């Protein structure tokens, strides 16, 4: 690994972390604004025009808050849990290819994708979501609070249950693309069918499981206010709470970006047609790559809007309904989806 390579990776890491922070700040604001709009309220409108600086004010307040660790809590693990949660959430951003090659240094092309050659791509995403369970479970256990413990347990059980269907929903895409590398998967969709048209069932399965994996309504049992106060972050305050909250929003954006990659063609701008001929730009030219990057972010944020919209429209599931949906409905459907996809591919070959 050359020095240029290392510097580029560090710069990419800096850009991605800052992008995540800005996106999370404005997703929190968007969530509050959209919630207000759906409930016929005004929403935050004091800090800056339309409340644009609300999230920054909130972050500064979180920094100067007293950091309370309950006497009964296990201090080490109580502090470790938010670090795991945010560490995992940040790491996912290294896997997602946000754009095609933008610049060329020493004969190597770099874009806003940190690990473009990683051949296990999507498997690493699944691995990261699995590690994410530790953050939530540790946060719940270490607080030594009954609400936190129940929230952490529920969340862990829910995340691992829905991860099965998520893994199976991805296999449908892998069958068509024939690769685990996310860039290969995007290339397979470029200028042709996006996988949402070939895998509609897979897309819906992935959307539902992504809602459950990020603990969002209607699957937000881990923090069901009427039963569990705040769930696993009941005993968190100050920036530790802030980090858990940030990790949640970072995960929402990450899963939206992964959905955009797997099912909505990644940085492909127009479905069914060749982008470069329609727009009159050379393939892999800089304007086309930048437009593609914009298209990618547009798709990801449209999905983030869907997440928010669903949260403020649907009531919460009961816990047994949640487990039944995951194990008895989604799991068989995803297995059948794989078999049908396989048969159709072989039949058409």
């Amino acid at each position, binding site marked *: *690994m050359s020095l240029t390579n290392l510097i580029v*990776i*560090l710069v*990419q890491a800096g850009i991605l972390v800052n992008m995540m922070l800005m996106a999370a700040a404005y997703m929190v604001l968007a969530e509050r604004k959209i919630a207000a709009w759906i409930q016929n309220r005004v929403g935050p409108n004091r800090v800056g025009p339309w409340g644009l600086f609300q999230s920054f004010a909130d972050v500064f307040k979180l*920094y*100067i808050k*007293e*950091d309370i*660790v*309950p*006497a*009964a*809590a296990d201090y080490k693990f109580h*502090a470790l849990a*938010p*670090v795991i949660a*945010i*560490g995992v*959430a*940040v*790491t996912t951003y*290294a*896997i997602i290819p946000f754009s095609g090659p933008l610049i060329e240094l020493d004969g190597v092309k770099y874009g806003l994708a*940190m*690990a473009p*050659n*990683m051949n296990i791509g999507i498997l690493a995403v699944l691995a990261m979501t699995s590690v994410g369970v530790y953050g939530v479970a540790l946060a719940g256990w270490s607080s*030594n*609070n*009954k*609400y*936190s*413990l129940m929230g952490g*347990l529920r969340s862990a*059980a829910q995340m*691992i249950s829905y*991860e*099965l269907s998520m893994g*199976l929903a991805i*296999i449908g895409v892998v069958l068509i693309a024939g690769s*685990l590398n996310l860039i290969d998967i995007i290339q397979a969709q470029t200028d042709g069918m996006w996988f949402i048209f070939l895998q509609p069932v897979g897309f819906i399965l992935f959307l539902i499981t992504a809602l459950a994996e990020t603990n969002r309504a209607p699957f937000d049992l881990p923090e069901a206010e009427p039963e569990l*106060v705040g769930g696993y972050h*009941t*005993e968190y305050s100050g*920036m*530790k709470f*802030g*980090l858990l909250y940030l990790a949640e929003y970072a995960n929402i954006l990450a899963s939206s970006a992964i959905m955009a990659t797997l099912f909505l063609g990644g940085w492909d701008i127009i479905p069914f047609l060749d982008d470069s001929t329609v727009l009159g730009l050379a393939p892999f030219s800089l304007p086309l790559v930048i437009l593609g990057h914009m298209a990618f972010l547009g798709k990801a944020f449209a999905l983030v809007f869907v997440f928010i919209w669903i949260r403020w429209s649907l009531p919460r599931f009961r816990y*047994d309904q949640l*487990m039944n949906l995951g*194990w008895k409905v989604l*799991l*068989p459907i995803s*297995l059948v989806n*794989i*078999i049908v996809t*396989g048969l159709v*591919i*072989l039949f058409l*070959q």
Partner: protein
Amino acid sequence: MILDYMPLIIMIVVGLIFGVSNIVLAENLGPKRSTRAKLSTYESGMEPVKTARERFTVKFYLVAMMFILFDIEIVFMYPWAVQFRELGYYGLSAMVLFMVLLFSGYLYVIKKGALKWD
């Protein structure tokens, strides 16, 4: 080969540094005016009854065990999915057989009531 994974490792380190530095910063910036009541466990304003280190329902363990079984089997499917076109009908029929075995175990678990939450 291992170099392709370097960005991931670097990003893990960046994420951990981000988390730790934020926590250290926040712990030192905020005021420290702790009282006994403030440090007690939150239980909706009541005096806490016992601790949370109690026994909880065994079903969470069952779910975790089933997850491990199924997840391992799903990981087996990934190499097959990548090599799917080369393996053709033979690979598909083998995988369907595998899924039937998996599914019969799944039906057994359901019939045993491992997922009854009441």
